[in-house]
């Protein structure tokens, strides 16, 4: 491999790789931050499961009560079936209607999926769109302010100056982050 020596800084870098001991405080600080995310996920998933079970039990009890009442009175089953469909329909509306939608490609349903698609995206324009959309979903559907702020900040990092100007259509969190961004950079 010596037939083609590199410029001195590169050869030195390769032959003598930099080595730094990791500061113990930094190591523990990172662990603490990441560790907090482990139970958080479990807690959230548990909440979703409990909420789902509660809804299922409520529906079952409601259906039982109504069917019990119905047997004693005139038959009204068609009405009952129609009403049971309502909760499903409420889940259908698309997440957000604004200009930050990704191109025609299939949309991941969860903001976490959108966030990772943005993280991996090679194109900055696409990154910005996806990070904004993930932030909107975290904020509006999950009330997860920390994750929303993280996504919005990433979007601002990769956006152009004109996109960082505060707009009337921005939500409160984007406005606040844009204002801070302007002070910081």
């Amino acid at each position, binding site marked *: 491999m010596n037939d*083609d020596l*590199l410029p001195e800084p590169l050869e030195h*870098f390769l032959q003598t790789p930099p080595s730094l001991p990791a500061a113990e405080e930094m190591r523990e600080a990172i662990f603490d931050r990441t*560790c907090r995310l*482990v139970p958080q*996920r479990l807690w959230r998933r548990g909440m979703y499961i409990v909420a789902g079970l509660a809804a299922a039990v409520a529906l079952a009890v409601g259906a039982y009560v109504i069917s019990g009442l119905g047997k004693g009175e005139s038959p009204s089953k068609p009405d009952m079936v129609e009403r049971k469909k309502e909760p499903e329909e409420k889940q259908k509306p698309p997440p957000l209607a604004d200009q930050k939608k990704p191109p025609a490609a299939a949309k991941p349903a969860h903001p976490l999926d959108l966030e990772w698609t943005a993280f991996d995206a090679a194109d900055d324009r696409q990154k910005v769109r996806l990070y904004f959309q993930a932030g909107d979903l975290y904020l509006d559907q999950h009330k997860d302010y920390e994750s929303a702020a993280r996504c919005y900040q990433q979007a601002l990092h990769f956006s152009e100056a004109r996109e960082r100007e505060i707009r009337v259509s921005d939500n409160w969190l984007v406005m606040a982050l844009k204002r801070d961004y302007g002070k910081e*950079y």
Partner: protein
Amino acid sequence: MQTSGQGDAEAALRDAVLSGDQVAWRRLYDGAFATLWAYVVWRCAGNRHLAEEIAQETWLIAVRRMRAFDPRRSRLQAWLRGIAAKVLQNHFRSVRRRGELARPGMEATQASVDERSLQTELIARSLADIPERHEAVLRAKYLDLLSVAQIAADWGETPKSIESLLTRARHSFRSAYENRAQDTLTSNESTT
């Protein structure tokens, strides 16, 4: 190479972490920290401040994205290195965008005062510019200190093809470095 024992152990840790087991996370973190840190320091060409930032971001992403880690496809270290490389690439892209918009050439002017920090940044950016496979073979040879024969065995290739790949990797590293140095020089000239 991945052994089924290592894969099984990592799969078990991953599942435990996903079920909220903080002790499993501690084991996984402690087991992988030193190797990942050495890699990040190398990728940052020894810039401690940058290495700490990239290491932290990598671990935060890893814990949030743990469900995506598939021990049947790659080892934990390879998966973490992939995240770190992407974090670093994104970092340089966003810094460049912010730097250009804030004050063109400012980074270069400051760096020219400190030749060593300029070299460090040039090397780190050059490593981020070269193809992933070139970076991987340079890492295997110069950071992990593997012989050509070992790399060939690990990658399922012939020593000759690895020799050839190393030559190409060194060339692309040099080209990336010279391009970056030229950009910096141009940037400095435009500000003076």
